[in-house]
Protein backbone atom coordinates (compact mmCIF):
# COMPACT_ATOMS: atom_id res chain seq x y z
CA UNK A 1 0.00 0.00 0.00
CA UNK A 2 2.60 2.54 1.12
CA UNK A 3 4.85 1.40 -1.73
CA UNK A 4 2.07 2.11 -4.20
CA UNK A 5 1.44 5.58 -2.74
CA UNK A 6 5.18 6.28 -2.90
CA UNK A 7 5.33 5.18 -6.53
CA UNK A 8 2.38 7.45 -7.30
CA UNK A 9 3.93 10.45 -5.60
CA UNK A 10 7.27 9.76 -7.33
CA UNK A 11 5.53 9.67 -10.68
CA UNK A 12 3.71 12.93 -9.86
CA UNK A 13 6.98 14.60 -8.95
CA UNK A 14 8.62 13.37 -12.17
CA UNK A 15 5.73 14.71 -14.22
CA UNK A 16 5.85 18.12 -12.59
CA UNK A 17 9.61 18.27 -13.07
CA UNK A 18 9.19 17.40 -16.75
CA UNK A 19 6.57 20.16 -17.14
CA UNK A 20 8.87 22.76 -15.61
CA UNK A 21 11.78 21.58 -17.74
CA UNK A 22 9.69 22.08 -20.86
CA UNK A 23 8.55 25.53 -19.70
CA UNK A 24 12.16 26.52 -18.97
CA UNK A 25 13.36 25.37 -22.37
CA UNK A 26 10.52 27.07 -24.23
CA UNK A 27 11.20 30.38 -22.48
CA UNK A 28 14.95 30.01 -23.08
CA UNK A 29 14.41 29.32 -26.78
CA UNK A 30 11.98 32.25 -27.16
CA UNK A 31 14.63 34.52 -25.67
CA UNK A 32 17.52 32.99 -27.56
CA UNK A 33 15.86 32.74 -30.96
CA UNK A 34 16.28 36.40 -32.03
CA UNK A 35 19.97 36.17 -31.17
CA UNK A 36 20.30 32.98 -33.17
CA UNK A 37 18.46 34.58 -36.07
CA UNK A 38 20.82 37.56 -35.96
CA UNK A 39 23.89 35.30 -36.11
CA UNK A 40 22.43 33.19 -38.90
CA UNK A 41 21.48 36.27 -40.93
CA UNK A 42 25.00 37.64 -40.52
CA UNK A 43 26.32 34.73 -42.55
CA UNK A 44 23.76 35.15 -45.36
CA UNK A 45 24.41 37.12 -48.53
CA UNK A 46 22.27 40.27 -48.54
CA UNK A 47 19.64 38.98 -51.07
CA UNK A 48 19.05 35.77 -49.03
CA UNK A 49 18.46 37.85 -45.94
CA UNK A 50 15.37 39.32 -47.61
CA UNK A 51 13.73 36.10 -48.79
CA UNK A 52 10.24 35.58 -47.49
CA UNK A 53 9.34 33.16 -46.03
CA UNK A 54 12.79 33.08 -44.40
CA UNK A 55 14.93 30.08 -45.08
CA UNK A 56 17.74 28.29 -43.33
CA UNK A 57 19.22 26.89 -46.55
CA UNK A 58 21.77 29.28 -47.98
CA UNK A 59 25.46 29.43 -48.77
CA UNK A 60 27.13 30.89 -45.69
CA UNK A 61 29.46 33.77 -46.49
CA UNK A 62 31.75 36.14 -44.64
CA UNK A 63 31.29 38.89 -47.22
CA UNK A 64 29.00 40.95 -44.99
CA UNK A 65 31.55 40.86 -42.19
CA UNK A 66 34.21 41.99 -44.67
CA UNK A 67 32.03 44.92 -45.69
CA UNK A 68 31.41 45.84 -42.06
CA UNK A 69 35.16 45.95 -41.47
CA UNK A 70 35.71 47.94 -44.63
CA UNK A 71 33.38 50.58 -43.23
CA UNK A 72 35.77 51.12 -40.34
CA UNK A 73 34.14 49.34 -37.41
CA UNK A 74 37.58 49.27 -35.73
CA UNK A 75 37.46 52.91 -34.61
CA UNK A 76 33.96 52.47 -33.20
CA UNK A 77 34.96 49.32 -31.34
CA UNK A 78 37.95 51.17 -29.92
CA UNK A 79 35.78 54.10 -28.79
CA UNK A 80 33.27 51.73 -27.22
CA UNK A 81 36.05 49.89 -25.41
CA UNK A 82 37.59 53.10 -24.03
CA UNK A 83 34.23 54.53 -22.94
CA UNK A 84 33.20 51.22 -21.39
CA UNK A 85 36.40 50.51 -19.47
CA UNK A 86 36.83 54.14 -18.35
CA UNK A 87 33.24 54.55 -17.21
CA UNK A 88 33.22 51.18 -15.43
CA UNK A 89 36.36 52.10 -13.51
CA UNK A 90 34.74 55.40 -12.49
CA UNK A 91 31.38 53.85 -11.58
CA UNK A 92 32.79 50.96 -9.53
CA UNK A 93 35.53 53.12 -8.02
CA UNK A 94 33.10 55.74 -6.76
CA UNK A 95 30.22 53.43 -5.93
CA UNK A 96 32.30 51.07 -3.76
CA UNK A 97 33.07 53.61 -0.99
CA UNK A 98 29.49 54.91 -1.19
CA UNK A 99 28.11 51.39 -0.80
CA UNK A 100 30.52 50.79 2.10
CA UNK A 101 29.22 53.91 3.85
CA UNK A 102 25.63 52.87 3.20
CA UNK A 103 26.05 49.33 4.48
CA UNK A 104 28.96 48.49 6.73
CA UNK A 105 29.61 51.85 8.36
CA UNK A 106 26.00 52.79 8.04
CA UNK A 107 25.62 56.56 7.90
CA UNK A 108 22.62 58.46 9.20
CA UNK A 109 19.69 58.72 6.78
CA UNK A 110 21.05 55.96 4.59
CA UNK A 111 17.57 55.33 3.23
CA UNK A 112 17.46 58.88 1.87
CA UNK A 113 20.88 58.35 0.36
CA UNK A 114 19.75 55.18 -1.39
CA UNK A 115 16.62 56.87 -2.64
CA UNK A 116 18.63 59.81 -3.95
CA UNK A 117 20.82 57.49 -5.99
CA UNK A 118 17.92 55.66 -7.58
CA UNK A 119 15.89 58.86 -8.07
CA UNK A 120 18.50 60.07 -10.56
CA UNK A 121 17.35 57.25 -12.82
CA UNK A 122 13.75 58.45 -12.74
CA UNK A 123 14.37 61.40 -15.04
CA UNK A 124 13.98 60.29 -18.67
CA UNK A 125 17.33 60.77 -20.37
CA UNK A 126 15.56 62.61 -23.20
CA UNK A 127 14.67 65.35 -20.73
CA UNK A 128 18.28 65.76 -19.74
CA UNK A 129 19.86 65.68 -23.17
CA UNK A 130 19.59 69.41 -23.94
CA UNK A 131 21.31 70.62 -20.75
CA UNK A 132 23.85 67.83 -21.13
CA UNK A 133 24.53 68.92 -24.69
CA UNK A 134 24.91 72.56 -23.66
CA UNK A 135 27.29 71.59 -20.86
CA UNK A 136 29.31 69.36 -23.17
CA UNK A 137 29.49 72.11 -25.79
CA UNK A 138 30.64 74.74 -23.27
CA UNK A 139 33.28 72.38 -21.94
CA UNK A 140 34.38 71.54 -25.51
CA UNK A 141 33.57 67.91 -24.93
CA UNK A 142 31.16 67.29 -27.79
CA UNK A 143 32.42 64.38 -29.88
CA UNK A 144 35.11 63.75 -27.27
CA UNK A 145 35.44 60.29 -25.70
CA UNK A 146 35.67 61.86 -22.23
CA UNK A 147 32.06 62.99 -22.37
CA UNK A 148 30.98 59.39 -22.77
CA UNK A 149 33.36 58.13 -20.08
CA UNK A 150 31.99 60.66 -17.59
CA UNK A 151 28.33 60.28 -18.51
CA UNK A 152 28.35 56.49 -18.71
CA UNK A 153 30.14 56.46 -15.36
CA UNK A 154 27.55 58.76 -13.78
CA UNK A 155 24.75 56.77 -15.38
CA UNK A 156 26.01 53.52 -13.82
CA UNK A 157 26.79 54.80 -10.33
CA UNK A 158 23.24 54.40 -8.91
CA UNK A 159 22.85 50.78 -9.97
CA UNK A 160 26.41 50.06 -8.82
CA UNK A 161 25.74 51.53 -5.38
CA UNK A 162 22.55 49.53 -5.03
CA UNK A 163 24.13 46.30 -6.17
CA UNK A 164 27.30 46.63 -4.15
CA UNK A 165 25.45 47.68 -1.02
CA UNK A 166 23.47 44.46 -1.12
CA UNK A 167 26.69 42.47 -1.60
CA UNK A 168 28.47 44.34 1.20
CA UNK A 169 25.60 43.65 3.59
CA UNK A 170 26.50 39.98 3.23
CA UNK A 171 29.92 40.53 4.77
CA UNK A 172 29.82 39.25 8.34
CA UNK A 173 30.33 42.30 10.55
CA UNK A 174 32.19 40.35 13.19
CA UNK A 175 34.79 39.32 10.62
CA UNK A 176 35.62 42.99 10.05
CA UNK A 177 35.53 43.64 13.78
CA UNK A 178 37.87 40.70 14.32
CA UNK A 179 40.35 42.27 11.92
CA UNK A 180 40.18 45.54 13.85
CA UNK A 181 40.79 43.76 17.14
CA UNK A 182 43.64 41.90 15.45
CA UNK A 183 45.19 45.30 14.78
CA UNK A 184 44.41 45.82 11.10
CA UNK A 185 44.21 49.44 9.95
CA UNK A 186 41.30 50.39 7.69
CA UNK A 187 43.25 49.89 4.46
CA UNK A 188 44.20 46.32 5.43
CA UNK A 189 40.68 45.63 6.64
CA UNK A 190 39.28 46.64 3.27
CA UNK A 191 41.87 45.12 0.97
CA UNK A 192 42.88 41.98 2.81
CA UNK A 193 39.73 40.96 4.65
CA UNK A 194 36.74 42.47 2.90
CA UNK A 195 37.74 42.55 -0.76
CA UNK A 196 38.28 38.79 -1.18
CA UNK A 197 34.80 38.20 0.22
CA UNK A 198 33.02 40.78 -1.91
CA UNK A 199 35.11 40.31 -5.09
CA UNK A 200 32.42 38.23 -6.86
CA UNK A 201 29.87 40.93 -6.09
CA UNK A 202 32.16 43.69 -7.35
CA UNK A 203 32.84 41.64 -10.51
CA UNK A 204 29.13 41.17 -11.11
CA UNK A 205 28.57 44.91 -10.67
CA UNK A 206 31.41 45.74 -13.05
CA UNK A 207 30.00 43.38 -15.65
CA UNK A 208 26.58 45.02 -15.47
CA UNK A 209 28.31 48.40 -15.93
CA UNK A 210 30.22 47.04 -18.93
CA UNK A 211 27.02 45.77 -20.54
CA UNK A 212 25.12 49.00 -19.95
CA UNK A 213 27.96 51.19 -21.19
CA UNK A 214 28.71 49.04 -24.22
CA UNK A 215 25.09 49.07 -25.31
CA UNK A 216 24.33 52.73 -24.54
CA UNK A 217 22.94 54.41 -27.63
CA UNK A 218 21.09 57.63 -26.88
CA UNK A 219 23.89 59.70 -25.31
CA UNK A 220 26.44 58.40 -27.80
CA UNK A 221 24.20 59.32 -30.71
CA UNK A 222 23.55 62.87 -29.50
CA UNK A 223 26.90 63.83 -28.07
CA UNK A 224 29.30 62.32 -30.61
CA UNK A 225 29.73 62.63 -34.36
CA UNK A 226 32.72 61.10 -36.08
CA UNK A 227 35.70 60.88 -33.76
CA UNK A 228 34.10 59.54 -30.56
CA UNK A 229 31.12 57.55 -31.86
CA UNK A 230 30.60 54.08 -30.43
CA UNK A 231 29.44 50.76 -31.88
CA UNK A 232 25.68 51.31 -31.35
CA UNK A 233 25.98 54.51 -33.41
CA UNK A 234 27.85 52.55 -36.05
CA UNK A 235 25.04 50.00 -36.17
CA UNK A 236 22.52 52.73 -36.68
CA UNK A 237 24.40 53.70 -39.85
CA UNK A 238 23.01 50.57 -41.54
CA UNK A 239 19.46 51.82 -41.20
CA UNK A 240 19.34 54.33 -44.00
CA UNK A 241 16.60 56.14 -45.87
CA UNK A 242 17.21 53.87 -48.86
CA UNK A 243 16.30 50.83 -46.81
CA UNK A 244 17.67 48.29 -44.38
CA UNK A 245 20.73 46.16 -44.97
CA UNK A 246 19.66 43.15 -42.94
CA UNK A 247 22.70 40.97 -43.45
CA UNK A 248 25.20 43.77 -42.87
CA UNK A 249 23.27 44.98 -39.84
CA UNK A 250 23.20 41.44 -38.48
CA UNK A 251 26.92 41.00 -39.11
CA UNK A 252 27.73 44.29 -37.37
CA UNK A 253 25.40 43.49 -34.46
CA UNK A 254 27.01 40.07 -34.08
CA UNK A 255 30.43 41.69 -33.99
CA UNK A 256 29.19 44.24 -31.47
CA UNK A 257 27.82 41.52 -29.19
CA UNK A 258 31.02 39.50 -29.15
CA UNK A 259 32.98 41.52 -26.56
CA UNK A 260 30.10 41.49 -24.06
CA UNK A 261 29.58 37.77 -24.56
CA UNK A 262 33.32 37.21 -24.13
CA UNK A 263 33.48 39.23 -20.92
CA UNK A 264 30.39 37.48 -19.60
CA UNK A 265 31.90 34.09 -20.45
CA UNK A 266 35.17 34.87 -18.70
CA UNK A 267 33.44 36.28 -15.64
CA UNK A 268 30.79 33.55 -15.62
CA UNK A 269 31.83 31.85 -12.40
CA UNK A 270 32.32 35.10 -10.51
CA UNK A 271 29.07 36.42 -11.93
CA UNK A 272 26.99 33.47 -10.80
CA UNK A 273 28.59 33.60 -7.36
CA UNK A 274 28.06 37.36 -7.22
CA UNK A 275 24.47 37.33 -8.37
CA UNK A 276 23.59 34.53 -5.98
CA UNK A 277 25.44 36.13 -3.06
CA UNK A 278 23.13 36.10 -0.11
CA UNK A 279 20.94 33.45 -1.67
CA UNK A 280 23.07 30.71 -0.16
CA UNK A 281 24.28 31.15 3.39
Amino acid at each position, binding site marked *: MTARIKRHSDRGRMRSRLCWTIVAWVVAIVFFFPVLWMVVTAFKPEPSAYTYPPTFSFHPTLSEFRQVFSRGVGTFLQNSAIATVGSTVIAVGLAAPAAYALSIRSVRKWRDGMFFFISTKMLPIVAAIVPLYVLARDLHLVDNIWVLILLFGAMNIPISVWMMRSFFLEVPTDMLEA*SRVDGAPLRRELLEIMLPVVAPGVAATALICVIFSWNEYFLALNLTATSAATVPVFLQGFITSEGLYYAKLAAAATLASLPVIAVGWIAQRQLVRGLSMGAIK
Partner: protein
Amino acid sequence: MAEVDLQGVSRYYPGSKTAAVQTLDLHVNDGEFMVLVGPSGSGKTTALRMLAGLEPVSEGVVRIGGREVTHLSPQDRDIAMVFQNYALYPQKTVRENIDFPLRMHKVGKEERDRRIADVAKLLGLEELLDRKPKALSGGQRQRVAMGRAIVREPQTFLMDEPLSNLDAKLRVQTRVQIAALQKRLEVTTVYVTHDQIEAMTMGDRVAVLRDGQLQQCASPRALYESPSNVFVAGFIGSPGMNLREVAVLDGERVLLGKRSLPLPARLRTPFSQVQGDHLTIGIRPEHFKLVAQDSDLYGEVALVEELGADALLHVSVEGLDDPLVVRTDGRRPAKVGETLHLTVLDDDIFGFHPVSGARM
Protein backbone atom coordinates in the same frame (compact mmCIF):
# COMPACT_ATOMS: atom_id res chain seq x y z
CA MET B 1 48.46 40.52 31.76
CA ALA B 2 46.53 43.35 33.24
CA GLU B 3 43.75 44.52 35.44
CA VAL B 4 40.59 45.61 33.70
CA ASP B 5 38.47 48.37 35.10
CA LEU B 6 35.08 49.66 34.07
CA GLN B 7 34.04 52.75 36.01
CA GLY B 8 30.49 54.03 35.71
CA VAL B 9 30.33 52.84 32.12
CA SER B 10 27.05 53.40 30.22
CA ARG B 11 25.97 52.89 26.68
CA TYR B 12 22.95 54.57 25.11
CA TYR B 13 22.11 53.49 21.58
CA PRO B 14 21.19 56.34 19.25
CA GLY B 15 17.48 57.09 19.48
CA SER B 16 17.03 55.07 22.65
CA LYS B 17 16.44 56.68 26.02
CA THR B 18 17.12 53.55 28.04
CA ALA B 19 20.69 52.47 28.56
CA ALA B 20 21.86 49.16 27.11
CA VAL B 21 24.44 49.22 29.91
CA GLN B 22 23.96 51.54 32.86
CA THR B 23 26.74 52.87 35.10
CA LEU B 24 28.55 49.58 35.20
CA ASP B 25 31.34 49.33 37.76
CA LEU B 26 33.45 46.23 37.37
CA HIS B 27 37.00 45.46 38.37
CA VAL B 28 38.73 42.39 36.97
CA ASN B 29 41.92 41.38 38.74
CA ASP B 30 45.14 40.51 37.00
CA GLY B 31 44.88 36.97 35.63
CA GLU B 32 41.29 36.57 36.72
CA PHE B 33 38.60 34.75 34.72
CA MET B 34 35.55 37.00 34.90
CA VAL B 35 32.27 35.82 33.42
CA LEU B 36 29.48 38.21 32.46
CA VAL B 37 26.20 36.34 32.49
CA GLY B 38 22.60 37.32 31.99
CA PRO B 39 19.59 36.71 29.79
CA SER B 40 19.52 38.15 26.26
CA GLY B 41 19.22 41.92 26.29
CA SER B 42 20.97 42.19 29.63
CA GLY B 43 23.83 44.23 28.16
CA LYS B 44 26.61 41.69 28.69
CA THR B 45 27.74 41.66 25.06
CA THR B 46 27.50 45.47 24.85
CA ALA B 47 29.71 45.72 27.95
CA LEU B 48 32.27 43.39 26.36
CA ARG B 49 32.18 45.30 23.09
CA MET B 50 32.79 48.56 24.92
CA LEU B 51 35.77 46.91 26.54
CA ALA B 52 36.98 45.86 23.09
CA GLY B 53 36.46 49.32 21.60
CA LEU B 54 33.89 48.03 19.12
CA GLU B 55 31.11 50.00 20.76
CA PRO B 56 31.44 53.66 21.80
CA VAL B 57 31.23 54.42 25.51
CA SER B 58 28.51 56.99 26.28
CA GLU B 59 29.66 57.66 29.84
CA GLY B 60 32.34 56.38 32.16
CA VAL B 61 35.93 55.25 31.94
CA VAL B 62 37.50 52.01 30.69
CA ARG B 63 41.01 51.05 31.82
CA ILE B 64 43.11 48.10 30.75
CA GLY B 65 46.38 47.56 32.59
CA GLY B 66 46.01 50.90 34.33
CA ARG B 67 45.91 52.76 31.00
CA GLU B 68 42.77 54.62 30.04
CA VAL B 69 41.47 53.24 26.75
CA THR B 70 37.90 54.64 26.81
CA HIS B 71 38.14 56.24 23.39
CA LEU B 72 40.95 54.22 21.84
CA SER B 73 40.27 52.07 18.78
CA PRO B 74 40.38 48.26 19.17
CA GLN B 75 43.75 48.22 17.38
CA ASP B 76 45.34 50.21 20.20
CA ARG B 77 43.99 48.30 23.21
CA ASP B 78 46.22 45.22 23.21
CA ILE B 79 43.31 42.82 23.50
CA ALA B 80 42.28 39.70 21.62
CA MET B 81 38.74 38.58 21.13
CA VAL B 82 36.97 35.34 20.31
CA PHE B 83 33.64 35.91 18.60
CA GLN B 84 30.46 33.91 18.84
CA ASN B 85 30.64 32.89 15.17
CA TYR B 86 34.44 32.68 15.37
CA ALA B 87 34.78 35.34 12.64
CA LEU B 88 37.56 33.47 10.86
CA TYR B 89 38.79 34.91 7.57
CA PRO B 90 37.26 32.53 5.00
CA GLN B 91 39.83 33.18 2.27
CA LYS B 92 42.80 32.53 4.53
CA THR B 93 44.15 29.18 5.68
CA VAL B 94 44.29 28.33 9.37
CA ARG B 95 47.97 29.32 9.40
CA GLU B 96 47.22 32.67 7.75
CA ASN B 97 44.32 33.27 10.13
CA ILE B 98 46.56 32.77 13.15
CA ASP B 99 49.37 34.72 11.49
CA PHE B 100 47.20 37.76 10.69
CA PRO B 101 47.28 39.50 14.10
CA LEU B 102 51.03 38.91 14.32
CA ARG B 103 51.61 40.46 10.91
CA MET B 104 49.43 43.41 11.85
CA HIS B 105 51.64 43.95 14.89
CA LYS B 106 54.76 43.67 12.76
CA VAL B 107 56.20 40.62 14.51
CA GLY B 108 59.26 39.24 12.68
CA LYS B 109 58.90 36.20 10.41
CA GLU B 110 60.91 33.79 12.57
CA GLU B 111 59.12 34.79 15.74
CA ARG B 112 55.76 34.43 13.96
CA ASP B 113 56.56 30.92 12.75
CA ARG B 114 57.68 29.91 16.22
CA ARG B 115 54.52 31.26 17.87
CA ILE B 116 52.20 29.71 15.28
CA ALA B 117 53.89 26.35 15.82
CA ASP B 118 53.52 26.71 19.60
CA VAL B 119 49.86 27.62 19.39
CA ALA B 120 49.12 24.88 16.87
CA LYS B 121 50.72 22.36 19.22
CA LEU B 122 48.89 23.71 22.24
CA LEU B 123 45.49 23.51 20.54
CA GLY B 124 46.12 20.42 18.40
CA LEU B 125 45.90 22.34 15.13
CA GLU B 126 49.13 21.06 13.52
CA GLU B 127 47.33 18.91 10.95
CA LEU B 128 44.90 21.67 10.03
CA LEU B 129 47.27 24.56 9.35
CA ASP B 130 46.89 24.48 5.58
CA ARG B 131 43.12 24.08 5.51
CA LYS B 132 40.61 26.82 4.92
CA PRO B 133 37.94 27.46 7.58
CA LYS B 134 35.15 25.98 5.45
CA ALA B 135 36.93 22.61 5.59
CA LEU B 136 36.86 22.57 9.39
CA SER B 137 34.26 21.31 11.84
CA GLY B 138 32.65 23.65 14.36
CA GLY B 139 34.97 22.54 17.14
CA GLN B 140 38.05 22.98 14.97
CA ARG B 141 36.96 26.46 13.95
CA GLN B 142 36.49 27.32 17.57
CA ARG B 143 40.05 26.20 18.31
CA VAL B 144 41.41 28.25 15.41
CA ALA B 145 39.59 31.30 16.78
CA MET B 146 41.19 30.60 20.18
CA GLY B 147 44.57 30.20 18.50
CA ARG B 148 44.23 33.51 16.71
CA ALA B 149 43.46 35.15 20.06
CA ILE B 150 46.23 33.62 22.15
CA VAL B 151 49.02 33.83 19.57
CA ARG B 152 49.27 37.59 20.11
CA GLU B 153 49.91 37.17 23.83
CA PRO B 154 47.65 40.14 24.58
CA GLN B 155 47.00 41.76 27.94
CA THR B 156 43.40 40.62 27.97
CA PHE B 157 41.21 38.00 26.31
CA LEU B 158 37.63 38.87 25.53
CA MET B 159 35.28 36.04 24.63
CA ASP B 160 31.74 36.51 23.38
CA GLU B 161 29.78 33.27 23.82
CA PRO B 162 32.48 31.23 22.06
CA LEU B 163 30.81 27.90 22.81
CA SER B 164 27.25 28.65 21.81
CA ASN B 165 27.61 27.15 18.32
CA LEU B 166 28.97 23.82 19.51
CA ASP B 167 26.91 20.74 20.24
CA ALA B 168 26.24 19.94 23.89
CA LYS B 169 28.98 17.34 24.36
CA LEU B 170 31.70 19.34 22.63
CA ARG B 171 30.64 22.39 24.59
CA VAL B 172 31.35 20.64 27.88
CA GLN B 173 34.77 19.44 26.64
CA THR B 174 35.75 22.82 25.25
CA ARG B 175 34.54 24.57 28.39
CA VAL B 176 37.04 22.56 30.42
CA GLN B 177 39.81 23.17 27.88
CA ILE B 178 39.29 26.94 27.83
CA ALA B 179 39.24 27.15 31.61
CA ALA B 180 42.43 25.06 31.84
CA LEU B 181 44.12 27.11 29.12
CA GLN B 182 43.28 30.34 30.88
CA LYS B 183 44.72 29.04 34.16
CA ARG B 184 47.87 28.04 32.32
CA LEU B 185 48.33 31.30 30.43
CA GLU B 186 47.20 33.42 33.39
CA VAL B 187 45.81 36.07 31.08
CA THR B 188 43.02 38.27 32.38
CA THR B 189 39.86 37.07 30.66
CA VAL B 190 36.38 38.51 30.32
CA TYR B 191 33.93 35.92 29.08
CA VAL B 192 30.33 36.51 28.09
CA THR B 193 27.69 33.80 28.18
CA HIS B 194 23.98 33.40 28.71
CA ASP B 195 24.50 29.92 30.10
CA GLN B 196 24.69 30.00 33.86
CA ILE B 197 26.28 26.53 34.02
CA GLU B 198 29.14 27.80 31.84
CA ALA B 199 29.41 30.85 34.06
CA MET B 200 29.48 28.85 37.28
CA THR B 201 31.97 26.23 36.06
CA MET B 202 34.45 28.57 34.36
CA GLY B 203 34.52 31.85 36.21
CA ASP B 204 36.72 32.83 39.14
CA ARG B 205 34.01 35.41 39.61
CA VAL B 206 30.69 35.89 37.86
CA ALA B 207 28.96 39.20 37.19
CA VAL B 208 25.21 38.81 36.74
CA LEU B 209 23.57 41.47 34.56
CA ARG B 210 19.97 42.28 33.90
CA ASP B 211 18.52 45.13 31.83
CA GLY B 212 21.95 46.74 31.59
CA GLN B 213 22.50 46.78 35.32
CA LEU B 214 24.93 44.77 37.39
CA GLN B 215 22.96 42.67 39.86
CA GLN B 216 25.80 40.95 41.69
CA CYS B 217 29.44 40.14 41.14
CA ALA B 218 30.82 37.32 43.26
CA SER B 219 32.36 33.87 43.18
CA PRO B 220 30.11 31.11 41.81
CA ARG B 221 29.72 29.64 45.32
CA ALA B 222 28.73 33.00 46.80
CA LEU B 223 26.18 33.58 44.03
CA TYR B 224 24.62 30.22 44.73
CA GLU B 225 24.64 30.48 48.50
CA SER B 226 23.85 34.11 49.01
CA PRO B 227 22.22 35.69 45.97
CA SER B 228 21.72 39.40 46.54
CA ASN B 229 18.25 39.52 45.01
CA VAL B 230 15.43 37.51 43.61
CA PHE B 231 16.72 37.78 40.02
CA VAL B 232 20.13 36.33 40.82
CA ALA B 233 18.50 33.65 42.97
CA GLY B 234 16.27 32.60 40.08
CA PHE B 235 18.97 32.86 37.42
CA ILE B 236 21.75 30.93 39.13
CA GLY B 237 21.11 27.24 39.66
CA SER B 238 19.64 24.64 37.36
CA PRO B 239 16.77 24.09 37.49
CA GLY B 240 16.01 27.48 38.92
CA MET B 241 15.00 28.23 42.47
CA ASN B 242 11.30 27.83 43.31
CA LEU B 243 10.24 31.42 43.94
CA ARG B 244 6.78 32.13 45.25
CA GLU B 245 5.10 35.17 46.68
CA VAL B 246 3.53 34.01 49.94
CA ALA B 247 1.32 35.40 52.67
CA VAL B 248 2.68 35.45 56.22
CA LEU B 249 0.43 34.45 59.12
CA ASP B 250 1.06 36.17 62.48
CA GLY B 251 4.63 36.91 61.43
CA GLU B 252 5.56 33.27 62.11
CA ARG B 253 4.28 31.01 59.37
CA VAL B 254 4.14 31.35 55.61
CA LEU B 255 1.34 30.03 53.46
CA LEU B 256 2.56 28.12 50.41
CA GLY B 257 -0.72 27.63 48.58
CA LYS B 258 -2.92 26.09 51.22
CA ARG B 259 0.03 24.53 53.11
CA SER B 260 1.99 26.35 55.74
CA LEU B 261 5.67 26.37 56.66
CA PRO B 262 7.33 28.02 59.64
CA LEU B 263 8.93 31.36 58.71
CA PRO B 264 12.64 30.89 59.54
CA ALA B 265 13.61 32.84 62.65
CA ARG B 266 16.31 34.86 60.83
CA LEU B 267 13.64 36.25 58.43
CA ARG B 268 11.22 37.36 61.12
CA THR B 269 12.92 40.61 62.08
CA PRO B 270 13.49 41.79 58.49
CA PHE B 271 9.92 40.80 57.61
CA SER B 272 8.56 42.91 60.46
CA GLN B 273 9.95 45.97 58.63
CA VAL B 274 8.13 45.11 55.39
CA GLN B 275 4.83 46.84 54.79
CA GLY B 276 2.01 44.39 54.13
CA ASP B 277 1.80 40.71 54.87
CA HIS B 278 3.52 39.23 51.81
CA LEU B 279 7.08 38.29 50.97
CA THR B 280 8.83 36.23 48.30
CA ILE B 281 10.42 33.02 49.42
CA GLY B 282 12.82 30.86 47.44
CA ILE B 283 13.71 27.20 47.84
CA ARG B 284 16.15 25.41 45.56
CA PRO B 285 14.87 22.11 44.07
CA GLU B 286 17.80 20.23 45.62
CA HIS B 287 17.01 21.52 49.12
CA PHE B 288 13.70 19.71 49.51
CA LYS B 289 13.86 16.51 51.54
CA LEU B 290 11.33 13.77 51.02
CA VAL B 291 9.92 12.46 54.27
CA ALA B 292 7.67 9.51 54.95
CA GLN B 293 4.79 11.50 56.43
CA ASP B 294 3.80 14.13 58.95
CA SER B 295 4.99 17.12 57.01
CA ASP B 296 2.91 20.27 56.66
CA LEU B 297 4.04 20.57 53.07
CA TYR B 298 2.77 17.89 50.72
CA GLY B 299 1.48 17.59 47.21
CA GLU B 300 0.87 15.29 44.28
CA VAL B 301 3.50 14.47 41.66
CA ALA B 302 2.30 15.94 38.35
CA LEU B 303 5.35 15.23 36.18
CA VAL B 304 8.64 13.36 36.46
CA GLU B 305 11.70 14.47 34.47
CA GLU B 306 14.32 11.73 34.42
CA LEU B 307 17.88 13.07 34.19
CA GLY B 308 19.68 9.80 34.95
CA ALA B 309 21.48 10.47 38.21
CA ASP B 310 18.66 12.73 39.35
CA ALA B 311 14.99 13.10 38.69
CA LEU B 312 13.02 16.34 38.78
CA LEU B 313 9.58 15.98 40.28
CA HIS B 314 6.95 18.61 39.58
CA VAL B 315 4.83 18.56 42.72
CA SER B 316 1.43 20.25 42.65
CA VAL B 317 0.58 21.80 45.99
CA GLU B 318 -3.00 22.71 46.61
CA GLY B 319 -3.55 26.43 46.15
CA LEU B 320 -0.31 27.02 44.16
CA ASP B 321 -0.65 27.88 40.46
CA ASP B 322 2.64 26.30 39.39
CA PRO B 323 4.01 23.06 40.77
CA LEU B 324 7.17 23.09 42.89
CA VAL B 325 10.22 21.51 41.29
CA VAL B 326 11.94 19.00 43.55
CA ARG B 327 15.23 17.26 42.77
CA THR B 328 15.54 13.69 44.03
CA ASP B 329 17.73 10.66 43.56
CA GLY B 330 17.13 9.33 40.06
CA ARG B 331 17.24 5.64 40.92
CA ARG B 332 13.80 5.30 42.45
CA PRO B 333 11.84 8.41 41.59
CA ALA B 334 8.25 8.83 42.72
CA LYS B 335 5.51 8.13 40.21
CA VAL B 336 3.02 10.53 38.75
CA GLY B 337 0.00 10.82 41.01
CA GLU B 338 1.89 9.83 44.16
CA THR B 339 1.54 12.10 47.20
CA LEU B 340 4.85 13.39 48.53
CA HIS B 341 5.65 14.93 51.90
CA LEU B 342 8.44 17.52 51.82
CA THR B 343 10.56 19.36 54.36
CA VAL B 344 13.15 22.11 54.00
CA LEU B 345 15.82 23.24 56.46
CA ASP B 346 15.30 26.77 57.76
CA ASP B 347 18.70 27.79 56.40
CA ASP B 348 17.66 26.73 52.91
CA ILE B 349 14.68 29.05 52.76
CA PHE B 350 15.59 32.37 51.15
CA GLY B 351 13.46 35.44 51.77
CA PHE B 352 13.20 38.39 49.39
CA HIS B 353 11.54 41.77 49.72
CA PRO B 354 8.17 41.52 47.95
CA VAL B 355 8.65 44.83 46.07
CA SER B 356 12.36 45.49 45.61
CA GLY B 357 13.31 41.83 45.35
CA ALA B 358 16.32 42.40 47.63
CA ARG B 359 17.46 39.52 49.77
CA MET B 360 16.32 39.74 53.43
